[in-house]
């Protein structure tokens, strides 16, 4: 299925090469300008990756820290977790980016660079969803597992770390992979505050070259390839962990 899709896209692009509407010269690697343009476009990859990966690491950690009190027997802890999720989930990502970049420095008096503003905004937005995923995953582990951990004297942290989370994470891995893909795509929004990632690079090149069709098509392909690689990686990890459990 994936291969078919890729093939169809390539066919479309190749067909475009010969038609009069396309001007592939802008990104033709055989010409000097074309090559310069391609390297310019690809130079955003580093930031897209760095931004998304940093943000996902923070949001997964934050999500777990929000999910755990959400499962507490104490009402105020559950309320705090619930409030965080509902509040953060209600803010559109673009709005979050603008607020963190332009608003937060005024509020705190601390200057935040574009990169960290992007990371914070994406991580915050995503953390609410990660929290919900963790909550569902942890709740899916049978009560008997807690009881067994209790009866071999494990404390709360060890119970979570060695018994509950390893089982929960295996089950939520597809959902976590989904969030990573989502994060890679959402990182394009950080271009609005000037982050030099893939989308920003494409925008800048469009302004100088006036070839939006070709340049944005390349941008689409960049995200497509990136995400196909990530998906394959997540699938591999899933298979490996399942094999692990089967022994």
């Amino acid at each position: 299925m994936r291969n078919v899709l890729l093939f169809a896209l390539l066919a479309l692009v190749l067909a475009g090469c010969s038609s009069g509407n396309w001007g592939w010269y802008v990104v033709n690697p055989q010409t000097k300008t074309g090559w310069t343009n391609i390297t310019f476009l690809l130079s955003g990859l580093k930031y897209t990756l760095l931004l998304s990966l940093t943000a996902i690491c923070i949001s997964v950690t934050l999500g777990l820290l929000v999910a755990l009190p959400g499962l507490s027997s104490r009402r105020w802890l559950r309320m705090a977790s619930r409030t965080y999720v509902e509040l953060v989930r209600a803010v559109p990502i673009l709005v979050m980016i603008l607020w963190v970049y332009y608003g937060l420095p005024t509020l705190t008096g601390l200057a935040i660079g574009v990169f960290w503003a992007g990371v914070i905004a994406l991580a915050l937005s995503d953390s609410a969803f990660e929290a919900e995923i963790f909550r569902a995953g942890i709740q899916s582990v049978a009560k008997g597992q807690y009881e067994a951990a209790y009866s071999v004297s494990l404390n709360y942290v060890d119970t979570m770390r060695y018994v509950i989370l390893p089982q929960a994470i295996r089950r939520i891995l597809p959902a976590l992979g989904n969030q990573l893909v989502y994060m890679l795509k959402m990182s394009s929004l950080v271009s609005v505050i000037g982050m030099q990632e893939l989308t920003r690079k494409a925008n800048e090149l469009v302004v100088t070259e006036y070839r939006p069709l070709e340049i944005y098509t390349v941008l689409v392909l960049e995200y497509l390839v990136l995400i196909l690689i990530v998906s394959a990686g997540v699938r591999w990890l899933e298979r490996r962990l399942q094999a692990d459990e089967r022994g």
Partner: protein
Amino acid sequence: MTQTEGDPIIRFEGVSKRFGDFEVLKSIDFEARQGERIVVCGPSGSGKSTLIRCINGLEPHDAGTITVEGVTLGRGKAAPARVRNGVGMVFQQFNLFPHLTVLQNLTLGPIRARKLTQAQARETAMRYLERVRIPEQADKYPRQLSGGQQQRVAIARSLCMEPRIMLFDEPTSALDPEMISEVLDVMVELAGTGMTMIVVTHEMGFARKVADRMVFMDHGQIVETAPPEAFFTAPRSQRCRDFLNKILNH
């Protein structure tokens, strides 16, 4: 240990427990002495599982006093580590950790809670796996074992914590008939070592063989307690006679 020989190792005084509106234990008085082997039976919903789950604080009690090895358990909260360390528990559904190998199941508690080294924990684990007669399964995962083998692993996992009291909550109820005896054999052997054991079970053959005392529960109360011979031949209460008739006559 402040315990002297013959003192009750477990003591319940007026212990009550309710789930919502349902009073599952009604002012229970109960004692077990060091090395005593007690079989608890009764119809389902009689509170027998809850009774033993209160001993290690898995089910915190609401009223009355529970003392285990001289430590009084707090109402409405988990038991202190000192009590949990001394009390092992075997469940009806085994509750092995599915993502860990047999050996890892056995060493997790000793390493994390008893602070043994990897090597010490491994040695202890292998010793108990020998004792439940499945040392060759050490590197398998629980799902690769039969029910009887899984339950024996669960028993070994509890023993690895070197408990002084072992609780069994219907350990053979989830097993196919042909696997029951392999688990009971291990339990009989354990009874021979002088371990204090409290077993909730309907296996009356096992009860006759190893129990020092039978406890019959119904509707959240201990209705009758007697040595096995007296219990099986001359039950005093009508409820107990009815129960024994039902489970023994078919």
